[in-house]
């Protein structure tokens, strides 16, 4: 059962991501992206990353996706029901991306990853992440907070009408 659900989610992720990449309608793409995000959250659960799964949903679906929708809405006439989108250099892009994919797969898969035989099943990650965040990663955490502040101020400044 779990296997089945895993592969379903797997397929969902791939399919929705493909729609994002190849779809003609921007609105559809956005919703497909939501599917991808949710799917990835599911994958996290299979990886015993409960905290991340929740964060994924809250931040990506609740935050970023909404922002993207706003972005689309603010840059197109709202009346346009179907926001079509076009692409450039499709052929070349596909070629190159396939090449990259091949390279990744050929280099990653044959590799014998140490310890991959015995996966570690975390029971509970929140406490561990919290602990790490305030010990080993404290400086990174602080820098991240400054970065967020900067982004906040920057975005606010940039979005003002009179620059």
């Amino acid at each position, binding site marked *: 059962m779990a296997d089945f659900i895993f592969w379903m989610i797997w397929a969902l992720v791939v399919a929705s991501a493909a729609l994002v990449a190849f779809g003609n309608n921007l609105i559809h793409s956005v919703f497909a992206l939501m599917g991808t995000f949710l799917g990835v959250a599911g994958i996290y659960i299979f990886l015993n990353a409960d905290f991340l799964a929740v964060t994924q949903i809250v931040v*990506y679906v609740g935050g970023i996706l909404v922002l993207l929708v706003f972005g689309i809405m603010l840059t197109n006439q709202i009346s346009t029901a179907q926001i079509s989108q076009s692409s450039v250099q499709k052929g070349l892009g596909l070629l190159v991306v396939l090449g990259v994919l091949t390279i990744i797969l050929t280099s990653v898969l044959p590799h014998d*990853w140490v310890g991959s035989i015995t996966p570690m099943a975390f029971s509970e990650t929140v406490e561990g992440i919290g602990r790490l965040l305030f010990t080993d990663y404290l400086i990174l955490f602080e820098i991240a907070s400054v970065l967020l502040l900067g982004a906040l101020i920057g975005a606010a400044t940039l979005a003002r009408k009179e620059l």
Partner: protein
Amino acid sequence: MDHLSSYLVLSAILFSLGLYTVVTRRNAVAILMGVELILNAANINFVAFSKFVTHNLDGHLISVFIIMLAAAEAAVALAIVLNLYNDRGHINVDEANALKQ
């Protein structure tokens, strides 16, 4: 599902699709979406390796930071896109080639 490679393949596919989006889309928002895909692919890798290879939570931490970064990036990028739109009336990236001069 208990095998590392299934995650890696997923991540690779996701990455490629994201890359393709970034490379081909004309609409700036769509490109942003592609970037999000790429970041997600990276996250999956981190978490997967965390579980299968390193057996600790460092990968999770990095993922948390990446998610945070993505949020910040989306906010700023969107603000830029808005400006671009105000400036030109469209957000087609292939026409934004002021660098060419």
